[in-house]
């Protein structure tokens, strides 16, 4: 196999994820009761035999740095393997924040040259999917491409959020890209870019030497690809398996809840996904303990939980405690959440270390309206609670509410939050 270097884009926050991405980039968002989103592309790379990786980080990189650790979790360790964190830096050539995907790669060309790869695989760390990049590389070689982009078929509704391409030739594998438009307002094709770009080294050098005019050139999708189509052999590779974009709260929610089905779309158990078990001390936790009055159905529960109450159709990350008489339904509770006696949670997405006080009721009641401040962001009834917040005892919070991180019990002005309210 030719030498391939992967550059993982993991710098973005994604505003639509609200309080969940206040303190971490999208790539570090917890997923499926154990993982971080970036575990999926990293495991794909490991399973594809690509073991030299640069991670382009920018927004709140500390949680990502913690999570990646030495890279040993993905076997990216040894003299010829490794994960390098590439945060923005000051220097002679590179003197500023990353202004976009192309700019981030541009600022790290020295890193790339040092490794001297045949191929550079640029990919997003924000998506959940299982893909063998070897097949992509094989396709790239078989059509003698300079650049190959991976695409997945999406419905027309919501397609305006993606780069779209018209791909020549109806072969199942893919073909030459005839037209590319980044997030076009008018639908041109159901083939949406997965933000996976495989460059032959010369093609990348060409882009970086000839086409980059900082600071104007920022993004591959906007500034490079539409022009490059005429200059180089640019191909589209069609991906035919499930792919989760999880860019909105609702998409994130659906992708997680899908795992609770009898036959989930995402068959994670067959994906050979790894995470860093040292992060959040997952390794040191005991198996979960279930008390004499516990009831747990249709749920995913990892280690370190203590369940004395009722849990239905929910996902619990390590270290969650559900006290006696508490009821948790249709909810996702991240690391070390504590649900005190008699508390009731319905359709709650709570970040790490949240405490739900005794007899607090969150997300209960009839669904009506949307979040008042962010109607497009939160309208399916999910109530969000930010990291480390302490919900006071007896608080009643309705649906589509947002409660910001690190609130103390005494910060809450009233004991009732109507549907759709935001507490900052």
């Amino acid at each position, binding site marked *: 196999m030719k030498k391939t270097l992967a550059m993982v884009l993991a710098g973005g926050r994604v505003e639509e994820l609200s309080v969940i991405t206040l303190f971490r980039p999208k790539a570090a968002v917890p997923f499926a009761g154990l993982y971080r989103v970036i575990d999926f592309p990293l495991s794909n790379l490991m399973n594809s035999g690509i073991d030299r990786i640069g991670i382009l980080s920018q927004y709140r990189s500390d949680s990502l740095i913690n999570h990646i650790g030495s890279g040993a979790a993905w076997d990216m360790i040894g003299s010829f393997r490794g994960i390098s964190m590439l945060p923005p830096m000051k220097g002679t050539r590179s003197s500023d924040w990353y202004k976009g995907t192309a700019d981030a790669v541009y600022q790290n060309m020295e890193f790339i040259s040092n490794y001297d790869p045949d191929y550079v695989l640029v990919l997003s760390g924000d998506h959940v999917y299982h893909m063998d990049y070897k097949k992509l590389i094989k396709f790239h070689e078989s059509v003698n491409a300079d650049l190959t982009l991976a695409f997945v078929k999406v419905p027309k509704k919501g397609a305006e959020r993606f780069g779209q391409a018209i791909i020549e030739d109806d072969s199942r594998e893919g073909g030459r890209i005839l037209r590319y438009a980044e997030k076009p307002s008018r639908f041109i094709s159901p083939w949406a870019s997965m933000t996976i770009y495989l460059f032959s080294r010369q093609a990348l050098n060409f882009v970086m030497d000839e086409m980059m005019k900082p600071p104007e050139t920022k993004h591959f999708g906007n500034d490079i690809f539409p022009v490059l189509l005429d200059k180089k052999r640019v191909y589209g590779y069609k991906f035919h398996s499930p792919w989760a974009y999880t860019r909105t709260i609702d998409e994130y929610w659906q992708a997680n809840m899908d795992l609770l089905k009898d036959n989930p779309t995402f068959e994670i158990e067959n994906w050979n*996904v790894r995470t860093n078990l040292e992060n959040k001390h997952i390794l040191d936790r005991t*198996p*979960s303990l279930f008390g004499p009055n*516990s009831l747990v159905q249709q749920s995913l529960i990892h280690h370190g939980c203590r369940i004395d109450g009722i849990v239905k159709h929910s996902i619990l990350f390590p270290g969650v405690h559900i006290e006696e008489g508490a009821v948790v339904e249709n909810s996702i509770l991240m690391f070390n959440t504590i649900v005190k006696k008699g508390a009731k949670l319905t359709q709650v997405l709570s970040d790490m270390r949240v405490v739900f006080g005794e007899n607090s009721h969150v997300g209960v009641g009839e669904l009506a309206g949307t979040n008042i401040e962010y109607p497009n962001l939160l309208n399916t009834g999910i109530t969000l609670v930010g990291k480390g917040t302490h919900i006071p005892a007896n608080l009643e919070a309705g649906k589509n509410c947002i409660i910001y991180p690190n609130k103390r019990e005494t910060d809450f002005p009233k004991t009732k939050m109507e549907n759709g309210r935001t507490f900052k």
Partner: protein
Amino acid sequence: MRDCVAFLLAGGMGSRLNILAKTRAKPAVPFGGNYRIIDFTLSNIMHSGIDQVGILTQYQPYSLMQHIRSGEAWDFIGRSRSARILPPSTGINASDWYRGTADAVAQNLNFAKRFNARQVLVLSGDHIYHMDYRPMMRFHKKRKADITVAMMHVPWRDTKHFGIATVDRDQRILDWQEKPDLAKNNLASMGVYVIEMKYLERVLQNAKGFDFGKNIIHDAVINDRVFAYPFDGYWADVGTLRAFWNSNMDILRRDSGLNLCQWHVRTNLDDEGHVADRLPTRFGKNAQIKNSLISFGCFVDGQVIHSILSPGVRIEKGARVIDSVIMHDVVVKQKAQLTEVIADKRAYFGAQSEIGVGEASQPNEKFPKHIFTGLTVIGKAAQIPAMTKLYRNTIIEPFCGKDVIAAQGLHVGSYVKQRRVKNAVPLTENNFS
């Protein structure tokens, strides 16, 4: 603690654990869901800040070596920390199998010398307890002891299994009885010794026997400074199947003193080659869980009551598991019923099979002293056919196929042997994990 080196004795056969210890050393027997017995002592060593540990192996060391690997799981990593496996070897100094606990240490004294140890901590790898060894070291130094033995009070009926001491007011041991029929006291040795290095060198040269309890301590009490360090926490010797089962069940009793959540026991999750992470456990629509400890990577759609599940166990709809210890990747098919079962890794229970049926009216036919209280023990990867009834006190050997079990006349206390096939493929390393 740079001046102390730990020797962890992990070579024992554990024959009373019967088929659980048939393919692995006793310290490597799985315990408490995702641990192995040795994890408890290794974690104690780690939490006590001891940097060097030599692990003395002899019997079936493969699964143990696989488990300990570099020692990284217990932070025995870095330039001045390590966990070394010390197997018996032939050579100038060490020329034979370990003939006993003291002999094993004697043959590896160089390991302790290399680190300029002033004290040696001798530990056993087959006990379940949580102990900080540092206060014991201080106790030892303060009394200028030659040997300090950690001791605890046990019920009088159990004294015959232990080294028993009589002490004076300052905890100095005046009299030692090794596994006495008639004990003078109920203060029992936990098999935890702090020994002055210089003293140890001298005494091992002149030792008449090969065992710490039987020979070294027994003789030392007469002439030297031997003290008893009192311990009153939870401690269990899980050397018998019933003790092993009891101690597992103690995890589920809040007042038992065995508090996994507070003990911070570490294990090596990568040791079985399943280095990819297992998923969170999936609970189905029909799951009913009471009073249980459940590891990750399981699928549970049946009833689990007062039981321990290791990673990867599958309990199908309508199945019921009560008072049982179920190890890694066991499959319990629909409507199977398990009561008081210890099932080793990858055992398979066919649909509607019933295990642990009836009364414990007679002990196991082959091992009446190992199995007589009603437990049923299923060996690694044994396959119980659908609709089969296994009565109490039954033992099924590892790797028994469905046809072997189906051909048996089963009764209370049955012992089912793995059929020996001519030119059978010998057990491979994979079977030892």
